[in-house]
């Protein structure tokens, strides 16, 4: 195995690249996009001034100006706070969201030796067969591969639920350490909200897991394949399971990001929220964590409901319409149909691009929702969480189990 590809396939490196090249820039861009988009929805102009001389580009550079401002600002720490926890809280809020990205398959597996050629999916799936020379040739071509997923593990999305729950400690601890009643109220509200929504968030996906029989996001994307009518959101085992699960999960996930219409922990008009005592870059970390969470939720929804990095009708070896699925060596391979070959390098680029576009669109949708709906009252929030979302997601699990049972009969 080539040492270069081995390094490129290194998990830590992949994670760093993912976080630094995709997540961080997207999240910081969102800080600008949020204000600009809300302005557009409310017939205002929003931040359109930051520029590099004649380079104005709609004010996108505001995100750099913001970052500089937050770093340069005074980091004010009130005298009575618990210093250790006060310093720890923003890190606790930010770190888990970044770690959780490890499970997201943000692109296909790349075979660097066949970048210019059309990938032979049949040959790839059948593995090293034939005589020694053929096996060696197969190994030389396909042994070096870079999987665009940092952490591929059986329990996949469970890891996400577990890690993201930790992020909530950031808010609660910030509220506690600030030694401020408003902050404490915000922290408590955030943990109570987390408890009511974490449950239905997890359960709403269980139905999908049951149908697919896997928790591993990479496998889910492969199962959904390149045909849009097989994607999660249109999963339809005699009820619109995918669509309902999508709405339930999306609602719970927005509540999890603690943004409007579920911004009770922040409650700007009354308590300002758990970060009321924070300033400068510490506050910036909470802010960034919130936006990274938006990106992350978009990535999860893309993966589970919208076919992940799949481009409609683009198989690993090219565009194909209405082909046949053949099982080779335990793997599903799509062959035949109306077929237009595309080189592996182009497929990879298209699929990375598709993932980015889907994520950006879902981020946009979340911003649209955030700037459309007014805040829920606390009792409405609890009603929605416990009386609507939870029973419906439990119902979904039963429906999915029934569908699974029927398909076995």
């Amino acid at each position: 195995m080539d040492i270069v590809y081995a390094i490129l396939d290194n998990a830590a490196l992949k994670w760093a690249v993912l976080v630094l090249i995709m997540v961080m820039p997207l999240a910081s861009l969102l800080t600008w996009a949020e204000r600009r988009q809300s302005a557009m929805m409310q017939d205002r102009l929003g931040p359109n001034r930051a520029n590099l001389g004649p380079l104005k580009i709609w004010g996108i550079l505001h995100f750099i100006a913001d970052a500089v401002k937050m770093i340069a600002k005074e980091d004010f720490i009130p005298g009575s706070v618990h210093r250790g926890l006060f310093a720890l809280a923003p890190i606790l809020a930010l770190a888990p969201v970044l770690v959780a990205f490890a499970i997201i398959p943000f692109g296909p597996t790349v075979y660097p030796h066949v970048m210019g050629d059309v990938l032979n999916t049949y040959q790839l799936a059948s593995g090293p067969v034939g005589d020694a020379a053929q096996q060696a040739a197969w190994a030389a071509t396909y042994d070096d591969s870079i999987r665009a997923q940092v952490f591929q593990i059986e329990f996949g999305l469970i890891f996400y639920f577990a890690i993201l729950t930790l992020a909530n400690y950031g808010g609660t601890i910030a509220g506690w350490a600030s030694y401020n009643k408003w902050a404490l109220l915000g922290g408590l509200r955030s943990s109570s909200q987390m408890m009511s929504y974490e449950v239905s968030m997890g359960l709403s996906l269980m139905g999908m897991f049951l149908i697919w029989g896997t928790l591993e996001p990479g496998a889910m994307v492969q199962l959904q394949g390149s045909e849009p009518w097989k994607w999660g959101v249109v999963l339809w085992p005699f009820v619109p399971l995918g669509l309902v699960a999508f709405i339930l999960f999306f609602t719970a996930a927005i509540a999890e990001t603690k943004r409007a219409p579920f911004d009770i922990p922040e409650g700007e008009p009354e308590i300002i929220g758990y970060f009321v005592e924070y300033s400068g870059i510490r506050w910036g970390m909470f802010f960034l964590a919130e936006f990274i969470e938006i990106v992350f939720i978009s990535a999860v929804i893309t993966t589970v409901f919208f076919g992940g990095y799949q481009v409609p009708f683009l198989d690993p070896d090219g565009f194909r319409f209405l082909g046949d699925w053949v099982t080779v060596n335990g793997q599903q391979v799509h062959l035949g149909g109306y077929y237009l070959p595309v080189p592996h390098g182009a497929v990879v680029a298209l699929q990375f691009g598709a993932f980015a576009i889907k994520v950006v669109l879902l981020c946009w949708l979340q911003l649209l929702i955030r700037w459309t709906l007014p805040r829920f009252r606390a009792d409405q929030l609890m009603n929605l969480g416990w009386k609507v979302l939870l029973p419906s997601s439990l119902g979904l699990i039963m429906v999915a189990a029934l569908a699974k049972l029927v398909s076995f009969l």
Partner: protein
Amino acid sequence: MAGGHAHDAHDDHGDGPEVLSVSDKNPRVRTIQVKRPTPAESSYLAATAKGLGVTLKHFVKNTFSRRKNTYIETIEYPEQKFEYPERFRGLHRLMHRDDGAVRCVACMCCPTVCPAHCITIVPAQTDDNGIEKYPATFEIDELRCVVCGLCVEACPCDAIRMDTGIHAKPVEERHEAIMTKDLLLELGARSTAVQGGEGADWRGKK
């Protein structure tokens, strides 16, 4: 108080809840129809979709059409300016005489009338007997000025005006916002009003 309740008692029409029956012992005791949200309403789905439709419409129109076709009415300030009405009160200025001297006769009307006490005048004597005094210093603290225009109203000789149309500029130090006599005169212009009536020797002219 009693009157208010008496009014309530037969107020069973209008926006209030539908009244099913009224007790004959006490007309204030009533059975009313409570409207609970239907499950469809309390799932918020329809309302959400409707709301998203409205914001989406505005977003698309504001983002993807030419500026003049959008709903946006923002004036981008330093480049575009709102046209002020003719009588807009801007920064002060001191008017000039024909010979370019300050028209102000240091009568102290304006510092007296100024509600913000922001005009400071140190009067001094002139050789011109018809005028007697002139302001040696004339300072207006534009930070304290409430732009009421009373100084202009009070001035007996059209010496002070607020018709420059200029805003008080943002400053970094408070003292920078104080307009001195030189500055005020710089903004000024020759006033065409005749000062001093017919002159100091008006009695002799008769």
